């Protein structure tokens, strides 16, 4: 992880750590904090606790998003304080869309299109708040809908269940916009729970969402998505999200947390050890294997 972040994430980059509640690479976020990257533009549909931590650590100057909160719990205090101007030295620029708008932006970026059209934003204040959301007339009729610009992150980082050494990546469970954010990126880091033989990938090609063709680095980092989750591997650590609420309300407590859980640790194995085996074991789900399908052997 250290090398992937050091080589591929540069000061001033637009960075997207995607994953919609599922498969959020907290490990990559923490490594970016440790390496004290600066002036990043952070893009994500739901900034979540990971961007709250990264913004508290001072890595970002701008946030591009569609829903700002600690899902199912409350607010993100560190981000709010910077938007509301309570931390004078660290103003945070925001550029905001809706979920469909952000997904459309990645899609346009992934497909090399100049914009993504959608039926949203009518009669709202969002295009006023963000003038990059613009009305567009259909070339085939009188209809006016809205367009959003492509988003092409300098670096996208996604977590996944497994990949081959060549970077062919498979995901199951919520897909979010991992694929769109990956194809939209200039550089792509894939973080996985498990490295598997290429034969495992080839046995189930429908599950491959990212080909090694577009992957710049594969990082094997078990538990790298904690406290978010990995379908079939571990559950969301809801206690962590609840515990974050009083921490994020207080700037000193937030900085103390970053010291204890990020700066003072050298990587994810140390973080998991600090979390404790009991806590980690409690997050393992029961079994619910998929049925097998037969792809057939031809020739």
């Amino acid at each position, binding site marked *: 992880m250290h090398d992937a972040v050091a080589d591929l994430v540069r000061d001033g980059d637009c960075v997207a750590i995607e994953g*919609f509640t599922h498969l959020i690479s907290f490990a990559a976020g923490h490594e970016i904090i440790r390496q004290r990257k600066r002036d990043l533009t952070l893009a994500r*549909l739901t900034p979540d606790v990971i961007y709250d931590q990264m913004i508290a650590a001072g890595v970002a100057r701008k946030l591009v998003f569609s*829903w700002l909160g600690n899902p199912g719990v409350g607010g993100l205090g560190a981000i709010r304080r910077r*938007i509301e101007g309570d931390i004078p030295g660290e103003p945070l620029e925001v550029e905001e869309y809706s*979920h469909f708008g952000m997904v459309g932006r990645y899609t346009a970026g992934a497909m090399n299109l100049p914009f993504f059209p959608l039926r949203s934003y009518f009669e709202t204040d969002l295009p006023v708040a963000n003038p990059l959301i613009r009305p567009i007339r259909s070339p085939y009729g009188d209809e006016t809908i809205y367009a959003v610009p492509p988003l092409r992150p300098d670096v996208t980082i996604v977590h996944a269940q497994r990949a081959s050494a060549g970077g062919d990546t498979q995901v199951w469970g919520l897909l979010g916009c991992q694929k769109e954010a990956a194809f939209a990126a200039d550089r792509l880091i894939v973080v996985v729970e498990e490295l598997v033989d290429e034969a495992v990938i080839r046995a189930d090609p429908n599950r491959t969402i990212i080909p090694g063709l577009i992957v710049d680095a594969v990082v094997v980092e078990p538990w790298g998505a904690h406290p978010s989750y990995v379908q079939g591997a571990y559950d*969301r650590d809801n206690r962590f*999200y609840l515990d974050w609420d009083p921490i994020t309300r207080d700037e000193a407590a937030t900085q103390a947390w970053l010291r204890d859980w990020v700066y003072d640790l050298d990587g994810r194995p140390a973080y998991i050890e600090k979390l404790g085996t009991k806590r980690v074991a409690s997050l393992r789900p029961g079994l619910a294997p998929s049925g097998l399908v037969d792809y057939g052997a031809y020739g």
Partner: protein
Amino acid sequence: MTDPQTPFSKSEMMIVAAARELAGQHVCFVGVGLPNIAVNLAKRTVAPDLELVYEAGVFGARPARLPLSIGDPTIVTGATAVVSMLELFGYYLQRGLIDVGFLGAAQIDRFGNINTTVIGPYEHPKTRLPGSGGACEIAINARQVFVIMRQSKRSFVETIDFRTSPGNLGGAEQAERIRREGGWLGRGPTVVVTDLGIYHFDESGEMRLDSLHPGATVEQVRETIGWDVAIAPDLGATPPPTSAELSLIREDLDPGGVYTK
């Protein structure tokens, strides 16, 4: 059967009333928080055939526990389909397959226009709220919109600070024209359920109190709304939660009392 001996909280009444409004509905887009528990209660009571759609990319969820967030792994296991968010918002929502979109709000006005973005001016907000998420496109593309929220003078306001999700705009006439001309598939907000009562929208597109929850009074309603609210001449009384509804909430859906305190 109703058990008058079982005490219940205002939040429980609100959740039960919202769930009952889903009777007869087929495909429901579930939002985070209170909508989540109301829809899951409806699925277990008045609307067993309800298809639960989560913006995270799930159609036909069968959650075995109350999802802790709208992206909980329990909405995946056993679901009919798991799709990308591009497909969920494009093929399911924008295509017009969603009967009811269920939203919460920080501020709402008499016409059901919703603010979840900021309190105060956008550039220098007094309070920064979560923003749209999927709410803006849900309000436009779902066939109808249900709103569930606690009422107070701070949340039921004459003028919202920011319009995140369109309701009946400046009134029914304008909203119907703009929706028709713009090719919107949805007809906007139809139900608002609060801790005090149930509202529908009258011919002018304005919120009207149609049913008062047990223990609530018209005075309380007036004191917690920032405009002179319309009240139905034949104002109804919401039946209290049944013991079956309460035990589902307390034992299955929210045993920790996170939403129902």
